[in-house]
């Protein structure tokens, strides 16, 4: 099996994930419950800089809850109870008095594309404007750069002033990726981004993600086992709120696993 991710990385002159540096995300004993009903049970793991970290698992395994905890989305959902600790860049995320500043450094892409009810341009310019960028030329530059990186610029450069919601599903999802990139995030969280996207667009987005790895860290929650295999440097397998397995993606798919449930899921025996 040729490792496409590694190949693309080498082509970019990118040395690969920084495993010898301290991890960017340290999760310790993270448990999540909704109104007392557990969704995630004592998960401990590290995610390293410049890594695509894949999370696979069937529905209700706690993947999305895990992502939501990372940028403190639990603040919106009073029913969501989070315990344990998450450190990003060595700092506990609950110590950020200003959670908005934390979120502005983390890009999120949701399963279904959420185009804000704004034009294509304004969707991408939204976050830069929040950061206080006012000059038109500067915004223009950010918008073009982010749309280009999300492989969307050529398709929308003539219709920047039309509503984002008028784009096709695949284009909208790339628009949300462009929007996430406009935050200049250190961390990009993707939650089953390809659910509403056709296979060709999915492959284009996957190529984009491989290139982005040289600049940022990506956490990729996916329900497509093969997608994790194509993209992720390391992969974690969540099942019913339990972290069953974590390891180099290659090893997992070669069958080097501690738990036979992992092989069962990967080979499609359940899920």
């Amino acid at each position, binding site marked *: 099996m040729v490792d496409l991710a590694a190949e693309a990385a080498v082509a970019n002159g990118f040395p690969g994930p920084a495993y010898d540096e301290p991890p960017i995300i340290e999760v310790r004993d993270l448990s999540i419950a909704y109104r007392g009903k557990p969704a995630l049970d004592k998960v401990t793991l590290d995610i390293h800089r410049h890594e695509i970290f894949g999370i696979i698992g069937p529905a209700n395994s706690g993947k999305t809850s895990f992502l939501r905890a990372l*940028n403190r*989305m639990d603040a*919106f959902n*009073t029913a969501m109870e989070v315990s344990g600790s998450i450190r990003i860049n060595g700092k506990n995320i609950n110590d950020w008095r200003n959670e*908005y*500043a934390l*979120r*502005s*450094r*983390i*890009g*999120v892409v*949701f399963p*279904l594309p*959420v185009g*804000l*009810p*704004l034009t294509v341009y304004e969707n991408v310019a*939204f*976050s830069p404007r*929040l*950061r206080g960028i006012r000059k038109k030329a500067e915004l223009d530059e950010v918008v073009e750069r982010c749309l280009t990186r999300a492989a969307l610029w050529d398709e929308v450069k003539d219709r920047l002033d039309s509503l984002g919601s008028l784009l096709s599903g695949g284009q909208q999802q790339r628009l*949300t990726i462009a*929007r*996430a990139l406009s*935050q200049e995030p250190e961390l990009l969280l993707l939650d089953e981004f390809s659910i509403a996207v056709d296979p060709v667009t999915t492959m284009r987005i996957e190529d984009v993600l491989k290139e982005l790895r040289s600049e940022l860290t990506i956490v990729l929650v996916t329900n497509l086992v093969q997608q994790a295999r194509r993209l992720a440097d390391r992969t974690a397998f969540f099942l019913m709120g339990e972290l069953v397995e974590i390891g180099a993606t290659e090893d997992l798919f070669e069958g080097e696993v501690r738990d036979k449930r992992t092989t069962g899921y990967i080979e499609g025996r359940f899920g």
Partner: protein
Amino acid sequence: MAWYVDRAARVLVFVGGISAIVFIIGIFVFITKEGLDFVLGPLSLGEFFTSIAWRPTSNNPTYGALALIVGTASVTGFAMLFSVPLSLGAALFIAEFATGRTRETLKILVEMLAAIPSVVWGFVGMSIMNPLIIQVFDVPLGLGVLNAGLILGLMAAPIMTTIAEDALKAVPDTYREAAEALGATRWEVIVKVVIPASRNGLLAAVLLGVGRGFGETMAVLMASGHAINLPTSVFDSVRALTATIASELGDTVTGGAHWGSLFTLGILLFVVTFLINLTADIVVRGIRKK
């Protein structure tokens, strides 16, 4: 069998839909017919729009409606001035900030406010607001633009709040989450995403409030002082178009000039309401196109 039901349901729905058009045309035809003799006869447009002398029962009758038009406009304008921000604020609080029991209680209370009959509001204006205004502002009479405007504003607020709240709630939560994930604060989310997304509904809410103000009769009749007068301050008494029709129509000779003049006021109200709605429609379309 099923196609039968389908056909019947379709006809019923069609009739229901078309009836709105039939009624509005019917009303227009009726008031125009009643007012036509007057419009083509004794009416002088110059006098109607520029004179404040509304003396339809005099031996030498004059029909200057300026004071009535200004009366309606000033009361409605004053009412909107404070009730639009009040209602939108209330709607924002209920839709975006209040949760659980607070939210439910507030919604029920607001809807109850909307159900208070207008004559009760008029009574409040006369017996509570009037002495209060006299006392607080040290003026001889508390029935006027201020009183009627406050009463009208309070009457319109629950409707505007309810409609505006529905409009805000119709904005999907995914928008809020997406914007918050981009690092926007609650307030930024509301100003930059939620309000723009619900603009049409909010506009509809405000226009319903304006419509309510134009059309309200009894409360304005009771709280405005009902005196023909061009107001120079908010304490002056005024007379509204609607109140004039309501108070005078019973004393007129059917088909006479006075009768016709009141229907002409009706035509004016109808046209103004129509124009407001048309403007709103154009504005909303304009927003949509963008």
